[in-house]
C-alpha cells in the first residue's frame, strides 16, 4: 500500500522518482477507479502517465479521445463502444517451420494464405483491436492524462507476435471492488503462469526501459499494465543491465484504423454487463473536477438483479398475453429453476456474480429461445445507447461475421469479424463487408455470432428485405417440422399398436419379446407357460416410408368453434406438368380432374409479424388445424415424384383451388358433403378417402373423434388413430404451428433472400432430419422451396 496517499497501487522508487503502478485486469472498473483516484488526488497526482500501449497506437488514441471531446474540464460521456484496429505483422519465431509447411501445402506465399489457414495454423490474425472501454484502466489513464494535461507515454512494443496465453482463469475481478490491493496480491501470486515467456519478456523489458526513461524525466509517474506483467517488470526495473530507453520515440509506421465496435462483439468483453461499464462512466467526472466519483446503489449485483427482474416480468407478461399458460404460472416455476441453475453455474465458474456469458448460457440451457431473446434484450440495454453509424457516420462498424460461427470456443480472443461501411471503401484490404480475423478482448466463451440468434441491433433490423418483385413462399422449415411431427406421431401410433397386441403362448418365435405380465399370470394359474407379445401384423402397421405416406390430421385446439380461423389450401406446384416423367398421363389427369394438386388444407389464424421480421416476412399465421395428405412438397420436383409414385391418388386434384373448389371436389368425386363450419370433422373427413389403411389424428389429449368421421372411416375400412398432442413438447408444437410466408427473390420461390437464415435464426434445411429417408432423398435431388 502506498503510505502517502492510501491509494491501492504499487510503488517503486527509481533514482528518487516515484512510480505508482496499477497492475490491472483489463475492462474492469475497479482498476480504472484506482487509476482515476490516484490522478484525482492532489497528493498523488502524477507528473506523467505511462501505459501498456505502443506509442503510435497511443497517439492515435489520444487524438481520437480529444476529437470525442475528452480531456476537458467538462464531463463528456464516452459512448460504448469505439475502437482502434492495429495491423499485426509478426508470427512467432517457433512457427517458422509450420509457416513453410503451409506455404508448401497451399503453394502460396505467407501473405497470400487464406485468413482461416493463418488463424488456425499460425494463430495469426491480421488485425488486433483496442476497445475504448471507459472501464479499462489504460483508457482511464489516458483520459486522466488529457484532463491533467500531463505527458502520456506508450512504453510497450509497437509490434509483436500474439502471445499464447494459458487457459487458466483468475479469481473473479469483482472481488477487487472490496479490496483492490489485496485482490492484486492474491492474483499476482499465480497469474504469472499465464504469461507467454517468449513474447511477454521482450515486451516487459521494453516497458521497464521505457519506464526508467520516464522516471528520469518526471518525479511522479503513474503506470498501468496487465496484472501478469507487473512482477516481471519490477524485477527488470531492479536489474541494472536494463537501461533507460525512450521507448516512445520508436516509430514503425503501424497501420491504424478507427472503428465502431458492434455491440455483439463489445458486450461479452465488458465488465459483467454493459450497464456496469456505463454505470462507471456515468458516475465518472474529469479528474480535475471538484465532483468526486461516488459509487451509486447500482453495483454489478444490483444491475444484474434489475436486468433479470425486467426480463422475468416481460416474459411472464408475454406468456400470459399469448394465453400459453394461465397467467404465466408455469413460466414462474421455470424461472425458479433458471435462477437456481444460473447461480450454481456462477459458483462453478468461480464468479461472485453471474456475468454475461453465464446468464446467456444458463438461459439457453434451461429456458429456450423466447426467454433468452427477452433476457438478452435486457442485458444489451444501454443508456446512453450504443455508439452507432448514426453518431459516427465516417466510421465503419466491426461486427461478427453474420450467420457464421468461427468455430472458436472457450476464451478464444481471435474472432472472425466483418468491417462494414455502406458505400465506402475502407482502403485497408479488409474490404467492406468482407470477413477477416481480428484479435479482440476475450469475451468468455461466447461466440458473438451466436448472439445474433437473440438480439438485433436497431440499425440492422432495417437491413435487407427487398423482395425484388418476387412472390410469397412458405419458409421450408415450417413444412418440414410440421410433417416431421406428423411422421413421429405415426411412429408412436404404430408402436403402440405393436405393443398393445395380445400376448400369445411361446411357440417357437419370440415375436415382440417375452410378455412378463402374461407369463407371471400363467405361473399363478399354474400353467407354467411362457407368453410372448405378438408382433402387430404388417397390415396393422402404418409405416411411413416416405414414398406413399398415409394422411395425417393435426387438431391444435379444443372445442368446436375456432374463432378467427379461416381455411387455406396449398398447391403442390404450378408447373408439375413440365417436371413429371409421364407427361401424357399428367395431361389425361388434368383433363379429367384439374391441374392443381392440393397437398394440404389448413385452418389458420393470422398472426402479427414482429417488428424485426417485417422487412423479410410477407405474412405470418398460426395453424389451428390441418390435414396433410402425405408429402410436404417442399419443391416442385418432390411434388412430381410424389404424385407419380402414388399414381395421382394421393391428394385432391382441382381446377379451383379455393376451399369451395375443394369442397365441390369432395362432394362430386368422393361423395362427402363437408360442413366447413365443423372444422375438426371436415379435416378428418378430407383425409379418409386418401388413406390406404389408417389416418393418424394428432389432437389434444381429451379429443374425441367426431361420430360422422368414425362412420365414414368404418365405411371405407380405415382406422383412425388418435395420438395426443402431449407426446410433443409445448414449445415444439408452438413452433410447428407457425406459418411464415417470405417474399422470395424469384417468381418460382427457389431463391430466398440471403439474410433469411440470419433474420429468422434458422437454417433453411432445419428439421429435414425429421422426414423419412425417401423424402429426404427426394429433397436432395433439387434444392428448392415449397409452394
Amino acid at each position, binding site marked *: 500500500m502506498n503510505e502517502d496517499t492510501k491509494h491501492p497501487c504499487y510503488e517503486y522508487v527509481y533514482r528518487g522518482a516515484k512510480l505508482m503502478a496499477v497492475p490491472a485486469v483489463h475492462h474492469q472498473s475497479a482498476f480504472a477507479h484506482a487509476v482515476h483516484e490516484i490522478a484525482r488526488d492532489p497528493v498523488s497526482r502524477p507528473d506523467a502517465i505511462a501505459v501498456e500501449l505502443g506509442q503510435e497506437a497511443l497517439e492515435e488514441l489520444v487524438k481520437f479521445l480529444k476529437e470525442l471531446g475528452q480531456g476537458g474540464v467538462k464531463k463528456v460521456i464516452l459512448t460504448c463502444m469505439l475502437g482502434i484496429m492495429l495491423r499485426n505483422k509478426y508470427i512467432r519465431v517457433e512457427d517458422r517451420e509450420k509457416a513453410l509447411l503451409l506455404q508448401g501445402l497451399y503453394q502460396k506465399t505467407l501473405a497470400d494464405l487464406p485468413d482461416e489457414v493463418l488463424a*488456425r495454423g499460425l494463430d495469426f490474425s491480421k488485425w488486433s483491436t483496442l476497445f475504448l472501454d471507459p472501464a479499462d484502466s489504460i483508457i482511464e489513464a489516458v483520459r486522466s492524462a488529457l484532463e491533467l494535461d500531463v505527458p502520456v507515454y506508450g512504453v510497450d512494443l509497437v509490434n509483436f507476435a500474439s502471445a499464447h496465453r494459458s487457459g487458466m482463469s483468475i479469481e473473479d475481478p469483482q472481488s477487487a471492488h472490496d479490496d483492490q490491493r489485496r485482490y492484486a496480491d492474491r492474483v499476482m501470486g499465480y497469474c504469472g503462469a499465464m504469461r507467454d515467456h517468449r513474447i511477454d519478456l521482450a515486451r516487459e523489458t521494453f516497458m521497464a526501459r521505457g519506464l526508467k526513461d520516464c522516471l528520469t524525466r518526471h518525479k511522479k509517474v503513474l503506470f498501468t499494465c496487465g496484472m501478469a506483467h507487473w512482477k516481471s517488470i519490477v524485477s527488470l526495473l531492479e536489474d541494472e543491465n536494463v537501461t533507460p530507453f525512450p521507448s516512445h520515440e520508436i516509430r514503425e509506421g503501424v497501420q491504424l484504423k478507427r472503428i465502431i465496435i458492434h455491440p455483439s462483439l463489445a458486450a461479452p468483453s465488458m465488465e459483467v454487463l454493459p450497464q456496469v461499464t456505463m454505470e462507471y462512466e456515468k458516475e465518472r467526472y474529469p479528474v480535475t473536477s471538484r465532483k468526486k466519483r461516488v459509487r451509486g446503489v447500482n453495483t454489478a449485483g444490483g444491475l444484474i438483479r434489475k436486468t433479470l427482474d425486467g426480463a422475468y416480468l416481460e416474459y411472464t407478461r408475454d406468456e400470459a398475453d399469448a394465453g400459453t399458460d394461465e397467467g404465466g404460472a408455469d413460466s414462474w416455476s421455470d424461472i425458479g429453476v433458471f435462477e437456481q441453475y444460473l447461480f450454481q453455474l456462477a459458483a462453478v465458474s468461480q464468479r461472485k456474480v453471474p456475468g454475461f456469458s453465464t446468464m446467456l448460457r444458463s438461459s439457453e440451457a434451461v429456458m429456450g429461445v423466447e426467454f433468452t431473446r427477452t433476457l438478452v434484450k435486457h442485458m444489451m440495454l444501454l443508456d446512453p445507447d450504443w455508439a452507432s453509424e448514426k453518431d459516427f457516420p465516417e466510421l465503419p462498424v466491426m461486427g461478427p461475421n453474420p450467420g457464421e460461427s468461427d468455430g472458436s470456443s472457450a476464451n478464444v480472443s481471435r474472432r472472425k469479424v466483418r468491417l462494414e461501411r455502406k458505400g465506402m471503401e475502407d482502403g485497408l484490404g479488409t474490404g467492406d463487408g468482407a470477413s477477416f480475423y481480428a484479435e479482440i478482448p476475450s469475451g468468455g466463451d461466447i461466440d458473438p455470432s451466436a448472439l445474433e440468434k437473440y438480439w438485433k441491433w436497431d440499425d440492422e433490423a432495417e437491413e435487407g428485405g427487398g423482395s425484388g418483385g418476387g412472390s410469397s413462399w412458405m419458409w421450408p422449415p415450417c413444412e418440414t417440422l410440421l410433417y416431421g411431427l406428423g411422421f413421429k406421431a405415426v411412429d408412436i401410433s404404430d408402436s403402440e399398436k405393436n405393443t398393445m397386441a395380445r400376448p400369445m403362448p411361446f411357440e417357437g418365435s419370440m415375436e415382440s419379446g417375452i410378455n412378463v405380465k402374461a407369463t407371471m399370470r400363467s405361473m399363478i394359474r399354474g400353467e407354467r407357460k411362457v407368453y410372448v407379445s405378438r408382433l402387430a401384423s404388417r397390415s396393422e402397421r402404418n409405416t411411413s416410408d416416405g414414398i406413399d405416406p398415409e394422411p395425417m390430421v393435426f387438431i391444435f385446439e379444443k372445442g368446436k368453434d375456432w374463432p378467427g380461423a379461416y381455411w387455406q389450401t396449398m398447391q403442390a406446384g404450378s408447373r408439375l406438368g413440365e417436371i413429371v416423367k409421364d407427361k401424357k398421363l399428367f395431361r389425361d389427369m388434368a383433363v379429367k380432374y384439374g391441374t392443381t394438386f392440393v397437398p394440404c388444407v389448413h385452418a389458420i389464424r393470422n398472426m402479427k409479424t414482429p417488428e424485426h421480421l417485417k422487412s423479410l416476412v410477407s405474412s405470418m399465421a398460426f395453424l389451428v388445424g390441418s390435414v396433410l395428405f402425405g408429402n410436404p412438397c417442399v419443391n416442385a420436383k418432390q411434388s412430381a415424384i410424389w404424385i407419380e409414385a402414388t399414381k395421382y391418388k394421393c391428394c385432391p386434384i382441382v381446377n379451383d383451388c379455393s376451399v369451395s373448389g375443394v369442397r365441390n371436389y369432395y362432394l362430386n368425386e368422393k361423395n362427402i358433403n363437408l360442413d366447413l363450419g365443423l372444422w375438426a370433422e371436415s379435416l378428418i373427413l378430407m383425409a379418409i378417402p386418401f388413406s390406404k389403411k389408417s389416418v393418424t389424428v394428432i389432437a389434444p389429449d381429451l379429443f374425441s373423434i367426431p361420430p360422422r368421421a368414425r362412420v365414414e372411416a368404418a365405411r371405407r375400412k380405415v382406422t383412425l388413430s388418435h395420438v395426443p398432442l402431449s407426446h410433443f413438447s409445448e414449445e415444439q408444437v408452438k413452433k410447428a404451428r407457425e406459418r411464415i410466408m417470405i417474399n422470395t427473390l424469384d417468381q418460382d420461390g427457389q431463391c430466398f433472400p440471403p439474410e433469411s437464415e440470419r433474420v429468422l435464426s434458422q437454417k433453411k434445411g432445419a428439421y429435414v432430419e425429421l422426414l423419412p429417408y425417401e423424402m429426404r432423398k427426394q429433397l436432395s435431388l433439387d434444392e428448392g422451396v415449397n409452394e
Partner: protein
Amino acid sequence: MEKKKVQLNNKLVWPSEPYKPDTGMMPEFVGRESEMELIMAAWIAGKRTLPLSPVLVGEPGVGKNRIVYELARFTGRDIYLFQGHEDITAEDLACTVRFSDDKANMMEYVLSPLVCAMLNGGIFFLDEIGKIRPRALALLVSVLDERRYIDSTLLGERVYAQPGFRFIAATNTGEVSLLPEFIRSRVRPVIKIGYPPRVEIEEIISRQFKPRMDNLATLIEKFWALWDERIKDKIPPTPRDAIAVFSLASSISDFESRGGSEKLKSAIKADAFTLEAGDKPQAVSSKHLEKALRKLYD
C-alpha cells in the same frame, strides 16, 4: 469377480453392473471445460435444492458419452449406462426378469442400471433418450422430480434414490424436440455439445497418433486442407470423424507395408496375414490420408 445377488427388502435380486470405461482404449481427454461446467452446475444439490437432470444434445461422434465418463471420474461416482432404443418398455427402466439358472426358481429379478444407480448413489446415464417411446419414459417422472423414487410393478417395490444419485441423458440433435412434455420439462438444462474447435481436434489426433506417425504436423495440415476441400457446407469434423480418418490412413499404410494385396492373396495358414496393428511408427503419407478420407466420405 463373481457377480452376487443383492438383498432388496425381502427379495434377492441381480444388480446391474456399473460401466467401467476402458481407459486404455481412450486417448487422454481434451477440452470441453465449458460443457463440464454446465453439467456440474446442474448437479449441485443441497438440502433444499434438488439436482437438475441435464440432457446432452449433439451430433453423433462429438463426444457426449466421453464427457459423461470423465465427469464420473472427476466426481468419483460409478456410472450406470442404459442404452435407449425403440423397444424399451417402461418396466425395463426399473427391473427385468430372466429365466433362472437355479432349477428351484423359474425366474429371477434383474435390477435395471437406473435402480442400481439410485440405490448406490451413482450416475445414471440414459443414452439415446430420444429413441425411447414416450410411454416407456413414464416411470422416469417420479425419479426426476422431488419424489426421487421409482415404482416397479414387477418387484412390487418402491425404490428411493440415495442423495448422491445423479441423472444425465443424451440424444442426437433432432430428437430432443420430440421428447414428450412430461419428460422435456424435467430433463434440463439442455446442453448443446457442438463440434470442438480445430485446435482441440488437433490435440486429440496428436495424443492418439503421435507415437505412431512421425510426420503428424504435416498430416494434420493436409487433413484440414482435404477436409475443407471435400466436405460440403464446411461441416466441421467430429473427433470420431478425425480419428476414423487417421486410423484408416494408418491401417492402409500398415497394410501396404506388409505387402498389401499381393501378400494377402498369397497368404497361407502357416504364413497368415496378421490383423494385429504394430506399435512401430507408420510411414503414413498424404496419399494414405487422402485415400482414407475418400473411402470414408465420398
